[in-house]
C-alpha cells in the first residue's frame, strides 16, 4: 500500500493550505494518511467512513505535500485513488458534483452551456481588436502549426477575456501559424480526473486528440495549467508538444523592451504549472526579459484547486484571504499565469495580471513609442 511508506513525520502539516485554514489534523496530509493507515481499526463505523470520504474532497490537490515528502510517498496519486474509491463506494454522497459531471457529459464543458458557445463569447469580445479572429477558429479541414486550447474557464468566463485577447494578440505579433480549437474543443478532463473519474476523462481526451491530429498541429498551447497538465501527461498525443503560453512566448522572444509599469508586483506560481508541470523557469524568464521588478510569493496554493470551490467554497475563500494577509497582497498586483488562480485572486479583490497581459502591454507601448 502506498500509504504505508508514510512515516508520519508531519513535515507536510504546516505547509498544507487546508490545515492552515481549518487547523485540524484530519484535513492535513499526515492526518489523512494516518486515517488510511488505521482504517482497519475504524472502517466498520459507517459514520466515520462517510466523514472520511467527505474529507478526501477537502483538499486543493496542490501537490505540495508530495513535493516535500522525504519518504517519497506519492500523495497526489493516493488522493486521486481514494477519491475514485469514495465516489464509487458512495456516489449519492457526491450529488453536489453531479451537475458538473452531467455538464461535462452532455455539453463537454463545466458550465453546462451549449457546445457551440465555446467559440462565441470570447470571439465576439476580441473581434474588434483582432478582426480576422473568425478565420483563426478551427473547422474541419483547416490546419495549423499551433493549436490553441483555451479550456473551459477561458472560453466562457468574462473575467478571462483580457487574457484570451492578449494571448492571441501575442500569437499574432509573433507571426505564429495557429488555430483556436473553438467549438471542437472538449473539456480537458481535469475536473473528472480530480474526482477520480478516469473513464470519463479518457473519453474527452480521445476526442481532443482526434482534433489535434486532424489539425496537423505540431504544438498545442494553453494558458491554463490544469489543461496543460492533462494535455502533457494524460492526452499524450504523439508528435504534438504541449506547452504553456509562457513557454511558447519565452522561446519566441530572446529579448523584450523594458516594462514601464511601476506597480508593486509579486509573482504567484500556479500549483499545477509549477509543481505538476514543472514550468518554473519560463514565466520568470519572460518577466526578467521585460525587466519586471517583483517578489516571489510563497509557493503555496491560492485555494482554487482540487474542486475545492465546489466542495467547500468557504474554506477556498479563507485560504486566499489568509494569504492576502500573510503576504501583504492588498496593495500589490499579483502576476500569475493561470485562469483558476486569477478567479481566486479577483474574488479576494486582489489586483492581478496574466503574464500575457504584461507582454502585450509592453509590446504595444513599445510599438506606440516608435
Amino acid at each position: 500500500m502506498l500509504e504505508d511508506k508514510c512515516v508520519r513525520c508531519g513535515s507536510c502539516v504546516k505547509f498544507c493550505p487546508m490545515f492552515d485554514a481549518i487547523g485540524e489534523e484530519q484535513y492535513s496530509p499526515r492526518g489523512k494518511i494516518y486515517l488510511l493507515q488505521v482504517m482497519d481499526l475504524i472502517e466498520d463505523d459507517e459514520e466515520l467512513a462517510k466523514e472520511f470520504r467527505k474529507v478526501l474532497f477537502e483538499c486543493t490537490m496542490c501537490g505540495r505535500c508530495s513535493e516535500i515528502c522525504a519518504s517519497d510517498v506519492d500523495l497526489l496519486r493516493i488522493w486521486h485513488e481514494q477519491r475514485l474509491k469514495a465516489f464509487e463506494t458512495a456516489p449519492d454522497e457526491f450529488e453536489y458534483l453531479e451537475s458538473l459531471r452531467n455538464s461535462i457529459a452532455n455539453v463537454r464543458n463545466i458550465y453546462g452551456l451549449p457546445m457551440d458557445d465555446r467559440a462565441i463569447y470570447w470571439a465576439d469580445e476580441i473581434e474588434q481588436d483582432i478582426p480576422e479572429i473568425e478565420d483563426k477558429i478551427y473547422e474541419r479541414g483547416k490546419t495549423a502549426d499551433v493549436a490553441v486550447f483555451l479550456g473551459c474557464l477561458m472560453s466562457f468566463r468574462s473575467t478571462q477575456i483580457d487574457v484570451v485577447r492578449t494571448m492571441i494578440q501575442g500569437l499574432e505579433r509573433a507571426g505564429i501559424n495557429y488555430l483556436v480549437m473553438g467549438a471542437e474543443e472538449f473539456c480537458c478532463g481535469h475536473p473528472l480526473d480530480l474526482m477520480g473519474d478516469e473513464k470519463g476523462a479518457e473519453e474527452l481526451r480521445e476526442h481532443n486528440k482526434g482534433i489535434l491530429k486532424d489539425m496537423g498541429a505540431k504544438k498545442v498551447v494553453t494558458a491554463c495549467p490544469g489543461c496543460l497538465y492533462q494535455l502533457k501527461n494524460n492526452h499524450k498525443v504523439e508528435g504534438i508538444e504541449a506547452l504553456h503560453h509562457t513557454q511558447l512566448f519565452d522561446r519566441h522572444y530572446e529579448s523584450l523592451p523594458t516594462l514601464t509599469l511601476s506597480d508593486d508586483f509579486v509573482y504567484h506560481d500556479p500549483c499545477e504549472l509549477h509543481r505538476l508541470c514543472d514550468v518554473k523557469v519560463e514565466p520568470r524568464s519572460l518577466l526578467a526579459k521585460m525587466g519586471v521588478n517583483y517578489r516571489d510569493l510563497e509557493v503555496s496554493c491560492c485555494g482554487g484547486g482540487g474542486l475545492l470551490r465546489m466542495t467547500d467554497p468557504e474554506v477556498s475563500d479563507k485560504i486566499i484571504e489568509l494569504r492576502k494577509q500573510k503576504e501583504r497582497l492588498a496593495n500589490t498586483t499579483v502576476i500569475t499565469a493561470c485562469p483558476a488562480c486569477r478567479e481566486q485572486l479577483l474574488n479576494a479583490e486582489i489586483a492581478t495580471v496574466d503574464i500575457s497581459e504584461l507582454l502585450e502591454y509592453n509590446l504595444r507601448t513599445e510599438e506606440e513609442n516608435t
Partner: protein
Amino acid sequence: MKLKDIAAAANASMYHRPDFKKIKGAFYPRNEDELAEAVKRAREGEYEITPKGGGSGLSAGCTGGNAERVIVSSLKMDKVLSISLEEGHADVQAGITPVQLNDILATMSMKFLVTPSSRDIATIGGLMGTDGGGNDTWANGTMRDNTLHAKVILYDGTKLKVGWDGVECENEVLEAALNKKGMNLNDLASSHGTIGFVSELRVKIKPLPRKRLLGGLAEYENANVLGEVLTTMIEEKCPITYGEAIVEAHPDVRGDLKPPLLILEFPFDYSCDLREITHFEPLTKTELNRMKEIRLKLPKRNPKDGVQVALFEGYGFHGENLLNMQEGISEINSLLQQHDFVPFAKSGHAPSKWYLGDNHPAYGIVMHSREIRPQNKSGVEIYKTVEALVAKCQELGITPKPEHKWPFADEVKKARLQELRMILGERMNSFIFEPNCASETLASMV
C-alpha cells in the same frame, strides 16, 4: 468516535494504533483562553489530558497511551507574542515551530538556536516536553538551556510560571509548596506533558553568527574511530557549529556516501586545530548544504522494498561506550537481525549534549536508527524486539535521553515527576507512570 479525535492521534512513533474509543475529544486552541476552555471541558468529563505538539517524536509521549483522554494540540498556538532584541529573548506561544520563529527572526538577523531535524513541525512547547535539541545542541545546548521561563496550565486550570529561580502562581499556597520542592525549568524539561500544558515560553534568541564558517566531510574506517574523534572533540570543547554523523546507511539510500562519516561546519580560524583532531575534506557551501539535506532526510527515507520503522528514538553513546561504538552497533545489529529486522540507517547529532534524569549533562552522540520492518510480524512481536534492545543496551551501558526510548525508563526523572504530581495533580499524561515502563500499553499500540 469522531474523525477529528482519531486524526489528532497522528504521530511519528510506531505506537500509533491506540484504542480510539478511549479518545474522548480533540482540541486545537489558538490562545490561552481557548486552552483554558479545553482543559475545563476535559475536567468536566473527568478525562485525562494528553498535551500534544507536532507529533514528530518517536517515543509515544504525545499519544497518552490508552487512557480515557482528550488530546489538546498546540499546533494552532503558533504566534510570536513579543521580541526583545536588546534583552535577547522572544515570548512565543507553545505551538510555534523553530522554522516559523526563525523565519521571523531572520528579518532581524537573529536566531533561535534549537533546531532539531523535525524543526518544520516540532513545536517549541513540545521541545520543552522532550528537552529536544538539534545539530546546534553541542554549541547551544538543549531546549532547557535556551528557555528563560514557561507558562503552564494545570489540570485544575491553575496557571504557573516556571523559571530557573522557581515557580510563580496566583495560588500562594501552591507556589510555596512547589518552591519548597525546588521546582524549576529542569522539571519541566523532559516532563512529556505530565506536569501540565505548556502554553507560552520565553526563549533565548541570539544574533546570527557573523564568523566565516567552513564545511568539511570526514569519513572513517569504522564507528570506533568516529567515537574516538567525537571523544576528543568533547574533551577539547571544539567550537564546531554543526556536527552530524551518518553512521550506517543501507545500499538503497547510501548513494555515494561512505559511512561512518561526520558532516561538520566550523569557524574558518578553527580549521587548523580541527585537523589535529580529525582529517576532513573541505566542502563548498553548495556541497555542505547538499550533505545537510541528505542527513536531514535520511531518517524519513524508505527502502526500495518494504517500509522502515524506528524502534527507538535514539541510542546515547557517551563516555566509555563511545570508544567502543562499533562493538555496540554490531551487537545491536546482530540482535535486530535475529528478530528479522534489516538495519537501514543510523545517524545523529554529533558531538551532542543531553541531560540525564538527574539533570546532569551527558556528551556524545544521540544515534537515531531506522530498520526495515519484517513483514507479517505482529505489533506485540515487534515490541518484544524493543524490550530485547532495552536489555541489550542496558547490558552495554548505552543510555538514552530520558524521553528516548527505552520507554520512560529513567527512574530518577520519573520519581521526581511523581513527587511533583502529588502536588500538581495526576491527570496529565499519566500512562508514562504505568508499571514496567508502560510496556503493556505500548505493545498494544504498535
